[in-house]
């Protein structure tokens, strides 16, 4: 079987390469002809004003991505095209542009210049220079993201953006979107940040082609106020690449990756399982001394162990049977970027294909990304542009589990009883756990989701000629997404050995008895347009900028669902082929429309680049709320003082940049269900008098006529600077966020005797969220050795100040004062090792020796709900950190990126299961040192243990440090590649989730949330090639 796997992998690589060839051919034809420039070799030396050599200077051919870096002695060489212009730049120095003409040696002197520290950062509806930025905005460039071979871009963000918590809870191809939080959890409602891609709230950020991304910014403080009512959880702004003036640069990348789970659980083998199950059965029966037949006899346990009868007494390692040693993933990208004075363009095409990690499983993921971004200067003052992208994506899974249930697959692997056979020695497949043998998944149909979102933005920018500094920008965006989701289930069969007849009986599996198809077609559209007036002016030392805009957004969603069963055959998987009996079909469908209307603006003022002021606002309207409370005003102010510009700092040469800044803003959150102010009824809750359908109607939640925005007030103070020309860069930010009017339901305080059909959200909660972020970096060159180290740590802790609580409850159980998401647990204190211990301490009535000892916290002599307490940590880490090393020596480069988290706990509700159900296997970790009659000093509870509820015995510290990414590259020397017309060629090997050090959770991946039954995170090992020409 192994062989077939490998050959399958080989075939798919070959197939992939064939595709690559085709794509290349098409692309080359498409852009051919544009090539054909003469090449000249330039060399020289770069010095400082005082004559010192300057190593590490960036030399770039203007309008291209062609570049070089100066050596320890300041020398460089670069091959450039005709009529090239070279740009020399180095952090802390003024850059210089030099026309090459017919020179072949160019020596340059650079002088220190503070303004050249300038890095442009994307903010809401604009860009700002980093040094005059007054808000808390984290940012990462696309170049850093492409270093990760992970298929999902968002998972590469972990640790890269200080203040962003990224937790990937599943590695399943196509279902691997991580949870993203900005500065932890500020509300117990929806904590999702607003994601804006190229100016429009858009989904599928994880599916972007990383090669298309220019930068990602995260607005963490009042700077998000310009996005008003949806921005309280922070805003992630993704900007894709645009054209660049210059000859076309083609960039081709191919990556081949091999993936395997980061951690595979070690489950009990058959004899251990049988032993543990026997113990459980014996405890259940009341530990009878006589007249007891264990479910598995001693001989049976022996036979499981010795493997003498693999048919009757198999010992199945389900993980080994069902999980492939590795799976594969390919990514191929080709892009072209260039432009003239009037037109510039960025064109890109990318593809990802990834197959699943399970044997005989239809899981497969395919994605194609296309992007065209063109800007045209129509007249001297008018520029128009279009940014069109499409994402074709095809997710295929086994038919058994829906998105929410994908853990089921792992229940049938991890928890499958090892005494059940997976495959008989003669090759026939056994039933597996409850007839759900994972090796039969390929016989059971599929669950397929195909979506083809198209994102379009059309922009116009008009420089008003008669008023200097006034610009009008407008954009119209239309996104459309069609998704077809199909669940096709087919009957499947397995064999079961009959010990009496000694025959292998063919049996139908538990799934469907005849094929059935369930199909849902959904269409979404988003129309968004805005118009913005921009004005900026510098008068003497006063700089003014103003932005005023209006924006409207309209969303539409429509879905239709069709279902038929009892297909005559599985040959045709189309609705029409199903049975036309009315009892065999079902349909459904509905429409949702939503809209936003708003006005926003920003005013900037700075004096001499020293004193910085900013005011921004949004007046936002949402159809989710009643007319009276529909609009909200969300302002933000911020200020900065650049100490480094002051004369008194002039003597401190080593200080290149130093800034204190602060901000305050009020932002809204409306991520709740719409129309909660109306009492409405939905169809459903039918009844069946006489066996026929009588339609019913169901009351929706009670109306809350006063529902309105949740608001967040954010205060943020930061200190940032650059010392020793980049020898040390730092940024330290503290923040305090106050959420109020949090939309929550009074579910726990309102008596059920009222019988309300469901309570609406009300603006009742308050949460305070505080924390800090620290970023340090160091950039240096030692001869041909360059390095850049950047580290960041972010801390955020929320505290519920008011939440709907069970009235009159004991204080320890209250949410107030605890972080958002804090769970309720009993406190465990070891186990009852002896009968005396059990007898002398309060316990639940069915507790036995060997059970968890629960602390009687209120000392009332009994264990019940009053002994619970609210735990101070959650599965959302309080500390997240990242540490990045970029090292380069000659043509070699190495990137190491570590990422981790602490102050985080995970409650594993699956872990305690041991010997209770005949078909739930347990981990070796759990069974080791369990209490038994023969091991009375055991530290872990007995098999079939009982507990009053979730307790700290199974709450584990999820602290970890990961080597998240590593990349080692080698660039071919210029003289080799220039001959074949390449400007750059680089080979690299890389990996993600390469190594993990976990503090306590050593049996599973520590990034889990909840039980271990889920598709594990994947380790990716990758080889790649990048060519520019």
């Amino acid at each position, binding site marked *: 079987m192994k062989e077939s796997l490998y050959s399958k992998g080989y075939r798919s690589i070959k197939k992939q390469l064939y595709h690559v060839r085709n794509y290349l051919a098409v692309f080359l034809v498409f852009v051919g002809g544009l090539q054909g420039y003469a090449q000249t070799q330039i060399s020289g030396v770069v010095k400082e004003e005082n004559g010192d050599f300057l190593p590490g200077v960036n030399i770039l051919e203007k309008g291209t991505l062609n570049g070089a870096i100066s050596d320890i002695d300041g020398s460089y060489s670069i091959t450039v095209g005709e009529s090239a212009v070279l740009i020399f730049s180095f952090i802390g120095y003024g850059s210089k542009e030099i026309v090459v003409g017919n020179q072949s040696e160019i020596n340059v002197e650079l002088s220190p210049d503070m303004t050249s520290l300038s890095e442009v950062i994307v903010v809401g509806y604009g860009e700002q220079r980093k040094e005059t930025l007054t808000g808390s905005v984290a940012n990462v460039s696309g170049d850093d993201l492409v270093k990760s071979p992970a298929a999902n871009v968002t998972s590469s963000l972990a640790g890269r953006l200080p203040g962003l918590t990224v937790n990937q809870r599943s590695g399943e191809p196509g279902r691997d979107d991580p949870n993203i939080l900005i500065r932890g959890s500020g509300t117990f409602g929806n904590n999702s940040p607003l994601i804006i891609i190229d100016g429009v709230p858009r989904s599928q950020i994880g599916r972007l082609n990383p090669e298309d991304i220019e930068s990602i910014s995260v607005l963490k403080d009042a700077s998000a106020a310009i996005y008003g009512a949806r921005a309280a959880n922070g805003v992630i702004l993704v900007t894709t690449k645009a054209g660049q003036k210059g000859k076309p640069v083609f960039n081709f990348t191919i990556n081949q990756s091999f993936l395997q789970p980061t951690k595979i659980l070690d489950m009990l083998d058959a004899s251990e399982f049988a032993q543990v199950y026997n113990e459980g059965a014996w405890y259940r029966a009341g530990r009878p001394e006589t007249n007891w037949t264990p479910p598995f006899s001693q001989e049976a346990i022996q036979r499981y162990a010795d493997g003498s009868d693999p048919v009757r007494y198999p010992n199945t390692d389900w993980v080994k049977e069902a999980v492939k040693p590795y799976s594969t993933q390919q990514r191929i990208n080709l892009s072209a970027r260039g432009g003239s004075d009037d037109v510039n363009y960025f064109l890109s095409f990318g593809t990802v294909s990834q197959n699943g990690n399970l044997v005989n499983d239809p899981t497969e993921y395919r994605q194609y990304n296309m992007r065209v971004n063109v800007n045209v200067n129509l007249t001297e003052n008018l520029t128009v542009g279009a940014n069109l992208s499409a994402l074709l994506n095809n997710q295929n899974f086994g038919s058994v589990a829906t998105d929410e249930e994908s853990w089921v697959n792992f229940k049938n692997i991890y928890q499958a009883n090892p005494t059940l056979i997976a495959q008989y020695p003669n090759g026939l497949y056994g039933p597996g756990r409850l007839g759900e043998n994972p090796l039969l998944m390929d016989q059971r149909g599929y669950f397929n989701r195909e979506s083809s979102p198209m994102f379009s933005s059309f922009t116009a920018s008009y420089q008003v000629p008669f008023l200097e500094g006034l610009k009008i920008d407008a954009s119209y965006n239309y996104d459309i997404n069609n998704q077809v989701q199909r669940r096709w289930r087919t009957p499947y069969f397995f064999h079961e050995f009959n010990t009496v007849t000694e025959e292998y009986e063919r049996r139908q599996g538990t799934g469907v008895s005849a094929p059935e198809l369930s199909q849902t077609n959904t269409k979404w559209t988003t129309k968004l347009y805005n118009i913005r007036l921009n004005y900026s002016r510098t008068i003497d030392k006063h700089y003014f900028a103003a932005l005023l805009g209006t924006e409207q957004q309209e969303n539409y969603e429509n879905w239709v669902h069709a279902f038929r069963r009892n297909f005559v055959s599985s040959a045709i998987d189309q609705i029409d082929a199903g049975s036309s009996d009315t009892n065999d079909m079902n349909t459904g469908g509905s429409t949702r429309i939503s809209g936003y209307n708003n006005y926003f603006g920003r005013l900037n003022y700075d004096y001499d680049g020293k004193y910085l002021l900013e005011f921004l606002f949004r007046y936002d309207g949402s159809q989710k709320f009643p007319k009276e409370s529909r609009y909200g005003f969300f302002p933000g102010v911020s200020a900065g003082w650049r100490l480094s510009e002051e004369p008194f700092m002039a003597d401190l040469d080593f200080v290149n940049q130093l800034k204190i800044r602060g901000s305050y803003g009020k932002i809204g959150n409306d991520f709740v269900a719409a129309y909660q102010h109306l009492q409405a009824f939905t169809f459903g809750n039918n009844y069946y008098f*006489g066996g026929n359908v009588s339609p019913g109607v169901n009351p929706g939640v009670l109306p809350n006529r006063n529902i309105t925005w949740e608001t967040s007030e954010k205060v943020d103070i930061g200190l940032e600077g650059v010392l020793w020309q980049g020898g040390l860069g730092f940024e330290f930010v503290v923040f305090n966020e106050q959420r109020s009017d949090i939309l929550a339901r009074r579910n726990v305080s309102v008596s059920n005797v009222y019988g309300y059909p469901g309570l609406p959200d009300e603006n009742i909660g308050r949460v305070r969220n505080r924390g800090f972020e620290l970023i340090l970096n160091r950039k240096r060159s030692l001869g041909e050795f360059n390095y850049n180290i950047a580290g960041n740590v972010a801390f955020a802790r929320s505290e519920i100040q008011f939440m709907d609580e069970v009235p009159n409850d004991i204080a320890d159980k209250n949410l107030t004062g605890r972080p958002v998401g804090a769970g309720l647990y009993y406190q465990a204190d070891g186990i009852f090792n002896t009968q005396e211990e059990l007898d002398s301490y309060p316990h639940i009535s069915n507790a036995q020796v060997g059970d968890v000892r629960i602390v009687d916290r209120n000392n009332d002599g009994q264990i019940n709900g009053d002994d619970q307490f609210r735990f101070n940590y959650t599965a959302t880490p309080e500390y997240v950190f990242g540490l990045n090393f970029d090292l380069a020596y000659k043509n070699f480069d190495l990137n190491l990126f570590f990422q981790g988290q602490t102050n985080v706990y995970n409650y594993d509700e699956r872990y305690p299961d041991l010997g209770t159900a005949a078909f739930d296997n347990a981990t070796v970790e759990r069974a080791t040192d369990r209490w038994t009659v023969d091991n009375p000093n055991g530290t872990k509870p007995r098999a079939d243990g009982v507990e009053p*509820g979730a307790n700290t015995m199974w709450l584990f510290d999820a602290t970890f440090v990961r080597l998240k990414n590593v990349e080692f590259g080698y660039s071919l020397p210029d003289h080799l590649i220039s001959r074949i017309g390449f400007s750059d060629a680089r080979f690299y090997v890389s990996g993600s989730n390469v190594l993990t050090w976990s503090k306590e959770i050593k049996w599973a991946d520590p990034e889990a949330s909840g039980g271990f039954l889920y598709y594990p995170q994947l380790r990716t090992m990758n080889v790649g090639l990048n060519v520019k020409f």
Partner: protein
Amino acid sequence: MKKSIIYLFILAVLAGCSDDILDVQPQDRVSEEAVWGDENLIRAYHTSLYNGVLHGFKIHMLSKATDEAFNAINFDIGIIPTGALRADNVTSLSDTHWTGGGGLYYWNTGYQYIRRINIFLEKMADPTIVVSEKEKLVAEAKFLRAYIHFLLLERFGGVPIVTESYELGADQSFSRNSIDECFEFIETELNEAIPDLEKRYAASDANFGRATQDAAQALLSRALLYAASPLFNESGDQGKWQRAADAAEVLLNAGYSLHEDYTTLFNQPTGTANNEMIFVRPFSSSPGGFHSAPMDNLNRRYGAYGGWWASNGPSQNLVDDYDMINGEPVFIYPNGVKTINPASGYDPQNPYVNRDPRFDATVIYDGATYRGDKFEMWVAPDGESWGFDSYRQSGDNPRSNYVLRKFMPDEGTPLSWQQPYTNPWIIFRLGEIYLNYAEAKFELGDEETCREYLSKIRARVNMPPIPSTVTGEELRQRLYNERRIELAFEEHRYWDVRRWKIAETVENQPIFGMDIIRNPSTGEKTYSRIQLLSRIFEEKMYWLPIEQNEILRNQGIQQNPGYE
């Protein structure tokens, strides 16, 4: 020129801005005004009230909380047999839990439906709302309100009687009414409803499943029987038995008769003619309208789940209580010791022959034939072979070595997870009324009538009548046992052992299964009882606790004793 075009364009765009786009009506729901203004929607609202009626075809059938089945799990409904029931875990028995929780923790759903009914009744009091047969709809709603209060009463004892709907933000202090007040309320409601209800719908009628006069009378019979029982009748008021007898008597000659076949009584689709059923929860084969009881409860042979976690396998305790075909109980209890009744002819090494035919109709056992398949639950002494239905073959074959047969379809109905099963959940049937009557009469000292009605029940399956020599306590035991056998798995046992106040004895007995060892060469089988579960029943468990948090938010509501 160019410029002016651009300005025009900008103006046009600006003019397009308006907040009209925020005035969007929801497309996926109906407004409240629409509902009460449209007769069809009013009827739809009324129809949905019936979903307050529970049925037992859930993943966790209530039998798992009784000595009818061996329930191997220690969570969810397993907290009852293991005695772990507390006020902070009782919600795992909620009827809205995915397992159905045996429908035990019905507090929340019950009051939700009571509120819906109250709203309906308040709206119908408005004379401007015109609906045809308004009185009948109102009467049906009143029946449902009474029934729901009864469901709450049997679970919790006296509960708050709620007859009006409250708006959000209402500040009502609820307190528990007494048991007597609750019974009185139920009786009054039913008596008010009866005149406006339809007398009866035949089982094949399109309206079957609606509340009728007979359904109301049957509820009255059960409620008054419970009211007279020791748990509810602490003062031992004999007059209550008389009222129970009277209520049952009304239905004895109301045109119903015992269905001739004890098997097909339970496993025919909704709509099949049947003269025994009085009130049922109907099902339909349309999507969402059916249940999966056969797949939930049969065993691995059919790819079914044995009651999920194999936890609805009938217990040896139940099997032991089926009489021999000669009418004699298998076991007698001289001085409380379980001893084989020599008169019964029971052979412990051939235990399944000559038993009450209801045994075959309720339980699949080793050697039984169901749908033409011979079930085999044995294991060979050397462990080299085992019957296909033994626990050694699969964890979904119940360890007790018995599988539920009652409700399970006969040949002709496919067995699969896709098959829509629509046999109705019987709530009231004539058989129960006979037993109610027999019990009330017994308690009133009319032993002859008691024996007569027990014998009528037994006659359906050709069991000999209860001889007139059986009297007093012995007759009480036969009466109790008849109810256990006749109504097995129909959600009676749980309530009966409580209202008789015998649960402290019965529910503290361990659950047994049967080990069957078969010698493969001789084919000879040996049977031995095996203790599978030690059970704990504490006195407090006569009532369910109210969820701890519900007590905290209702200072006026007292927790049931023992759960504080």
